[in-house]
């Protein structure tokens, strides 16, 4: 199997999970409802855990560095996350909508990966898809209620959706290894994922009484998968590694 292709896939998935988990952990203690703080914190832990597991596969199977080094010692350019996950948490409306859009894609991605010819990834996918199923359940439940709640909450959901959608399409940016991944049966590909995702979220969005934003191809925010990031990733990484950098080589 093509090691470079697998590594690319592990990194982009791991980086997505790490960065969105990092972002969502920011809600701990300041969310809209105590119970919702708990839910966001749990989902953040799940995501950070997924990142760790993905880097661990790279470490064990591909002879890569250990997960802490991969996460805490790469430059911004070496990160392959999509720009959607990098954006600050903003207000709850944006965080919720991002979580909705991202986790629907995650669920389908992991479902597709349960059939991967790359066994370690297939095993991980089987193990964690229940967690992501819950994330989707959570997102759908809140999205529906807020979309149908008050005039303000409806407007906020629609606005957040309109804002986030061009970034969300960026999830499916292809890497240079796309064809190899598909050919070797490692992953069914971003295009298939995007189609399934669009079908899924359109149904939920419409049922919630919201309008699916139309996004012109030229407006889609690409770049993340190739190392071109929003202005938010570098400060995020600086913050995340602030302690580690004070004493390189120390054990924490």
């Amino acid at each position, binding site marked *: 199997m093509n090691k470079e292709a697998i590594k690319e896939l592990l990194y982009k998935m791991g980086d997505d999970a790490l960065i969105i988990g990092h972002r969502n952990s*920011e809600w701990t203690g300041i969310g809209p409802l105590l119970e919702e703080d708990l839910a966001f914190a749990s989902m953040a832990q799940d995501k950070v855990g997924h990142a760790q597991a993905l880097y661990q596969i790279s470490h064990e199977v591909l002879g890569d560095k250990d997960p802490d080094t991969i996460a805490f010692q790469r430059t911004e350019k070496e990160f392959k996350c999509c720009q959607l996950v990098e954006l600050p948490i903003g207000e709850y409306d944006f965080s919720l909508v991002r979580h909705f859009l991202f986790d629907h894609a995650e669920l389908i991605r992991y479902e597709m990966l349960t059939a991967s010819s790359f066994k370690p990834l297939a095993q991980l996918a089987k193990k964690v898809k229940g967690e992501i199923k819950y994330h989707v359940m959570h997102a759908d439940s809140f999205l529906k209620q*807020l979309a149908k709640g008050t005039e303000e909450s409806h407007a906020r959901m629609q606005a957040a959706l309109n804002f986030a959608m061009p970034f969300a399409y960026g999830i499916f940016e292809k890497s240079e290894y796309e064809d190899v991944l598909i050919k070797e049966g490692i992953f069914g590909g971003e295009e298939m994922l995007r189609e399934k995702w669009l079908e899924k979220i359109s149904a939920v969005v419409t049922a919630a009484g919201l309008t699916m934003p139309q996004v012109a191809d030229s407006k889609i925010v690409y770049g993340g998968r190739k190392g071109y990031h929003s202005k938010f990733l570098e400060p995020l990484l600086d913050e995340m590694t602030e302690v580690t950098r004070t004493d390189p080589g120390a054990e924490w």
Partner: protein
Amino acid sequence: MYGNTHLTEEEAKRLNVTDEDPEKLAAFEAKIDRGEKIEPGEWMPKEYRKQLLRMIEQHAHSEIVGALPEGTWITRAPNFRRKLALIAKVQDEVGHGQMLYSAAETLGKTREEMLNDLMNGKSKYSNVFNYPANTWADIAVIGFLVDAAAIVNQTINSKGSYGPYCRALERICYEEAFHLKQGHDNFVYLATGTPHQRAMLQEAMNRWYRPLIHFFGPPDRNSKHSEKLMKWKVKLASNDAMRNQFLDMYVSKIQEVGITLPDPNLHKNADGIWEFSDPDWDEFKRVSGGDGPCNKERLEVRRYAEMAHRWVREALMNPSDKYKIPLA
């Protein structure tokens, strides 16, 4: 996490049961003497309800405000293990708040009324959370020692007389065992690490020594907790007794890794009582009165969490739903 509750002189004076039905009061006190618990919906003296509510409410506030100093470092934890542990730990504090507000709700005050009183400064939270977490090492000290102090307090309180509070505390103590272990783990890694790590830990320890001594509240000689509260098993041990237990259990665990405490007079006397320099109780009063290093920020952040999300709760509410006090 929680510091101890104490009554001011004024409050202690107001504590009276003269207008209670003597027969009901006697039956109530007999139940408590027999070691029975009191459940929501049972008859209880007005003062019992009031003091319990005040205590559980303060405890709940302490949990959710307590999430903030540690939250300071949630985005900066230095590796996967610490990152996951810290998110989980701070999350637990919020979860404890949730359970404690629920226990307090059974006494007839809604969560929102309690949060309003927190925001308006009418009800207090533990003083210890008005201090800043300056560095990553503060997280080790808080996670290990503030949680250890809280466990001493909460384990004792879990033997109290009010069913819902005891149940919440049992679960909380179980979860706090993880907090203490992960805090100790972090503490030991820094203490046995590089000179830089040791230095930052020692500095953090020096900062937190006094707030930790303050944690259990003023010395018994100044604290007017009435005998009634002891008799009703609302309060189960004196501030000094708990402080002593804490020092007994943890001073050696700090010193065994070569970290020192910034008090030359700290020692255990021949009677097994820990003695220490005057920890400046005026500072304690000043900080609990609102004038501490972080009081303003803590309340502002809490207000933000409530006010910026009004629209969320408004959207979730069904006008036809009628609130009923939870059962247990």
